[in-house]
């Protein structure tokens, strides 16, 4: 896919309240994306009323594509499907995503069909839609941490595999300057083929 086709970027912000570094990183991310020609839609998940997934499968077999819980969690798959890039911005918590980010991600299940199919030797769900956004992950750590970074990157890749794609991720450290954060984000966009 050519970079010119990426026009809308959804930021799933999984920060905790009072995380100034992540808020600043979010500003740098928005600025960098706008500079690359994107319309940016930041979704601060902690500010939204999102109930946890009930595991009821209604989004597959009762109201296909729509979660039966009528709250702001419905915004996540809706905005996802209207975006060209979906960017996770999250502190890396025990190697994975924050619970704030995860509560949003748990509500996107209906964006795929319920059925099971073989994808490169592994079972996954088939597509409900013709096109899905690229998934990019930006994880925040206090300092380099090989194991946590490996788990985080693997998790982003696994999420991308659900839409039969390759994930892209970077890790930002809390002592990185704004300039360094911007460099990492630009490199991430370039790696994903999403930079102008």
């Amino acid at each position, binding site marked *: 896919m050519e970079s010119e086709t990426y026009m809308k970027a959804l930021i799933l912000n999984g920060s905790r309240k009072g995380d100034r570094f992540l808020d600043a990183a979010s500003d740098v991310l928005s600025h960098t994306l706008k500079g690359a020609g994107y319309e940016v839609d930041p979704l601060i998940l902690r500010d939204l009323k999102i109930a946890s997934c009930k*595991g009821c499968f209604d989004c597959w*077999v009762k109201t296909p594509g729509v979660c039966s819980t009528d709250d702001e969690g419905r915004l996540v798959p809706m905005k996802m499907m209207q975006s060209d890039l979906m960017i996770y911005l999250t502190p890396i918590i025990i190697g994975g995503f924050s619970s704030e980010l995860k509560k949003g991600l748990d509500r996107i299940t209906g964006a795929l069909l319920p059925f099971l199919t073989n994808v490169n030797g592994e079972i996954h769900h088939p597509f409900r839609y013709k096109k899905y956004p690229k998934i990019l992950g930006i994880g925040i750590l206090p300092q380099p941490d090989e194991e946590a970074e490996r788990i985080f990157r693997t998790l982003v890749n696994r999420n991308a595999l659900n839409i039969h794609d390759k994930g892209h991720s970077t890790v930002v450290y809390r002592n990185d300057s704004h300039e360094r954060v911007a460099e990492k984000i630009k490199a991430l966009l370039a790696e994903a083929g999403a930079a102008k």
Partner: protein
Amino acid sequence: MSSPKKALLLVGSPRGRDSSSEALGGYLLNRLKEHGMETGKVYIHPSMLTERGQAEMLQAIDRSDLLILAFPLYVDSLPAPVIAALETIAEHRRTKVRKEQKLVAITNSGFPEASQMDTALAICRRFASETKIGWAGGLAIGGGEALHGRSLAEAGWMARNPRKALDMAATALAEDRPVPKETVDIAAKPLIPRWMYVFVANRWFKNEAKKNGAQDKLYDRPYQA
């Protein structure tokens, strides 16, 4: 550490008592009881909804020697309320000195390959490391969704491998040993052949949609741009 005396099952499924997590974790808990351990159970989702629920969950954890975390795979990881619970437990353990404990994780998913749960178990292991809880091992049950809340006894032949693995795990854990690799390998065996699992699951989804009068909407694209 002497042999563990109290085991606590943390059920991390929103389906609670009707979940495969309950069926798998509950089976292990019963085996541990037969080995002479005291047992208890906490449902994470309702506990995390209130401060009182969280406090009671933390108290139950503090009283236990062995923690059993049983959860379904959600989007390649743990369900959000379970992650929130781990964040809460980690913070709790940071503020006070806790006694020596061990953690074993049991996860299951709607995919037949146990390897799809590797990342979720890596997160559990990392949690144990960060909170200085001893890691006793992780069991991944491929296609555990097929249990659909039935007990392992009710599931009969299909659950023979999980039963065998959990029997072996109980023996090891009661003797304060980590779950052996052989046990992990047995647990990872699919409940039924992969082709059969896919066939049955696809038919089940169609039948459920029909029951709900949604068979003509199965392929809807409500958020198509």
